[in-house]
């Protein structure tokens, strides 16, 4: 029996229909809107203005705060304006609109596909370069990667965990990346290993990707520190704490970061982006996006420039199916339904999923039957039914005592609930309120 995390979890149908579609570059659109806040933390401050000429890979937004990330232009052309663009939720965020002219890259960026293996930079220089390249976690949360490598005093790391799990149904971006860019990705892992200053790196991959496990096991043989761990299929194994538990057996304490148990976790996509930046000087301006759905005529994995609209990606995959009920940004479990298809692809957009009306329908809400299914599937050991009750009754103190803030919003509870209760929706409300109250307490 292969490894997995011990508590909770579910296994929804894989539906990885785009798994065999090779990564194809998507045509550069006529205009892009590059959001200045594509990461967790403070949005970058724009350093260009309307009328400026920019090249692909040129810095257009600068880090603004400790947790923040640089933003680079993904195309060459003229800055049209700096204006609002809707985020996947529909709320306006600042973005740089660029009218595309040709495809000229900024100086020093190596766009060739030749593999560059030898790593010449030392630890500090690598972290500095990751910071400069605006690299963020590509697994979904978009946490600035360089911050993970600023290890707080008194803590030491000994293992780097690389996330090749891709436990979300439908998504295949990471899978394709591992198959097609295994060499580059492994160099990226090696760079991250040096940046963390550890001997050991583990790549965790779920069993439903045997080709990736085989390929990476073979290729990683030449790197002494890197091992590949085949993991039993279980959602949400791609979550940081679950992956650490599955790969190393260590448990990150409640409210603490992975460094507490000597680990750092990065996605395979991040490792690839790190390779591109450190070895080839190419900042994070494009990513693999899975465009899929059962009704989609041509489910694909596209290499998309950041700022390209969702509509362009959907068009390239054969257009919006007639019976579409929801378009989801991300995977079906943690993704968000979008209301507007003109929104741009960001650094964290792993997939665009089109669900039919029947697939997207929310179940009828019934009374809680106290079956405890939500408790048994919660990977964090929480009591979702109880937190929902507290949230509905405005009992925020009790919700906080029940460790609501440990919830990572994986949605296992809502998925499994036989009464179709919107458990996660209310836990989110509780988390928001607890956060507000904590801030209010801190400012007192």
């Amino acid at each position, binding site marked *: 029996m292969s490894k997995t995390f011990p508590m909770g979890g579910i296994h929804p149908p894989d539906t990885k229909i785009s798994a065999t579609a090779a990564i194809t570059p998507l045509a550069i659109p006529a205009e892009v809107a590059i959001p200045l806040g594509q990461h967790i933390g403070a949005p970058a401050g724009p350093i260009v203005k309307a009328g400026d000429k920019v090249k692909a890979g040129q810095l257009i937004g600068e880090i603004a705060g400790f947790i923040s990330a640089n933003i680079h232009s993904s195309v060459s052309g003229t800055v049209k304006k700096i204006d*609002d663009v*809707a985020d*996947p*939720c*529909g*709320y*306006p965020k600042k973005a740089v609109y660029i009218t595309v002219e040709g495809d000229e890259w900024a100086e020093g960026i190596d766009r060739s596909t030749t593999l560059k293996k030898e790593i010449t930079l030392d630890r500090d220089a690598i972290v500095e370069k990751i910071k400069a390249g605006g690299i963020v976690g590509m697994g979904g949360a978009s946490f600035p990667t360089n911050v993970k490598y600023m290890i707080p005093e008194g803590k030491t790391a000994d293992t780097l965990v690389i996330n090749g799990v891709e436990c979300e149904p439908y998504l295949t971006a990471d899978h394709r990346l591992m198959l097609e860019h295994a060499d580059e990705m492994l160099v990226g892992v090696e760079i991250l290993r040096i940046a963390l200053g550890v001997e050991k790196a583990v790549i965790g991959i779920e069993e439903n990707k045997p080709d990736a496990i085989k390929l990476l096991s073979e290729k990683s043989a030449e790197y002494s520190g890197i091992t590949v761990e085949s993991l039993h299929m279980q959602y949400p194994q791609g979550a940081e704490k679950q992956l650490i538990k599955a790969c190393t057996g260590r448990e990150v304490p409640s409210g603490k970061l992975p460094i507490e148990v000597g680990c750092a976790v990065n996605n395979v996509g991040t490792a690839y982006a790190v390779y591109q930046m450190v070895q080839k000087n190419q900042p994070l301006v494009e990513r693999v996006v899975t465009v899929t759905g059962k009704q989609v005529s041509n489910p694909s994995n596209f290499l998309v420039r950041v700022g390209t609209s969702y509509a362009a990606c959907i068009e390239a995959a054969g257009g919006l199916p007639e019976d579409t009920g929801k378009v989801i940004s991300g995977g079906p479990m943690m993704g*968000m*339904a*979008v*209301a*507007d298809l003109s929104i741009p692809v960001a650094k964290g957009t792993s997939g665009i999923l089109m669900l039919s009306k029947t697939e*997207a*329908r*929310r179940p009828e*809400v019934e009374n809680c039957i106290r079956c405890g299914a939500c408790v048994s599937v919660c990977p964090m050991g929480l009591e979702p039914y109880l937190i929902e009750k507290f949230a509905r009754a405005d009992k925020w103190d009790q919700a906080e005592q029940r460790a609501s803030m440990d919830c990572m919003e994986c949605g296992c509870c809502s998925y499994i609930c036989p009464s179709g209760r*919107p458990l996660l*929706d*209310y836990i*989110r*409300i509780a988390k*928001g309120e607890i956060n507000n109250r904590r801030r209010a307490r801190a400012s007192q």
Partner: protein
Amino acid sequence: MMYSLFTLGGVAGVFAMILYFVAKRFHVEEDPRVAEVEAMLPGINCGACGFPGCTGLAEALVAAAEKKDISALYCPPGGADTMGAVAEYFGLAAPTSAPTVAVLRCNGSYANSPRKAEYDGPSSCAVAHKLGTSGSACTYSCLSEGDCVTACNFEAMYMDPATGLPVVIDENCTSCGACVKACPRDLFEIRLLGKGKKPRRVWIACRNRDRGAVARKNCSVACIACGKCVRTCDTIVKAISMKDNLAYIDPDICIACGKCVPECPTGAILATFPVKAKQEDSGEPVSTGS
């Protein structure tokens, strides 16, 4: 027989003494006036006075009466009658406060702000607000899920299925502020009810702080921050101010003359009384609200 009588009687006697001494030792002096004042209050524990319930206000009233001044306290649902009775009880001057009412500052009905997407999540504005912008493209508008109606304890509100907006029934509203707290988009405000049999009041029915063009694109009756109302009112009482692309009418200054209403190019200003349209406008007189 005698034996058990003595034993039980003895035990009872010992406990009676313990209870007696405890009651003496920990006796709490309670002001009988608190209970009497509380009896005069409506007893609905709405919290509009700022205290958790009627007992809280009664205690505060008694404490204030000690200082011979209860003017800072008021029971909005009880109104002048209740406060008059309380003042008479203490033999003090009755505090006065103009009656107030909850006012919805959004007119993004289905017709004015066409919905661009369907929301199928739980019927809760708080959840809808967290998940996204809901149907309307305006990110400040009413979410039409009725958290305010659920929060209202006085049947002073109902959802109008035709517009998707809540309607306040002035007569029932105690201005307790439950809807103000419940609305995740802060669309309600407790404003002065206004004078007269049919109370006159004027307000900006919009909370959109986007630039005018964006706001107008998403809703035909949005405030576009053109400033016409501000200029009009500046020649009268200066009740209107402009902040973050949004006009605001201060209810304490506004004299409900209604001059600003026909000035608004989008019709974002609502009044409870009919206002004559300007000469060049051929439109109907603007009249909405209760």
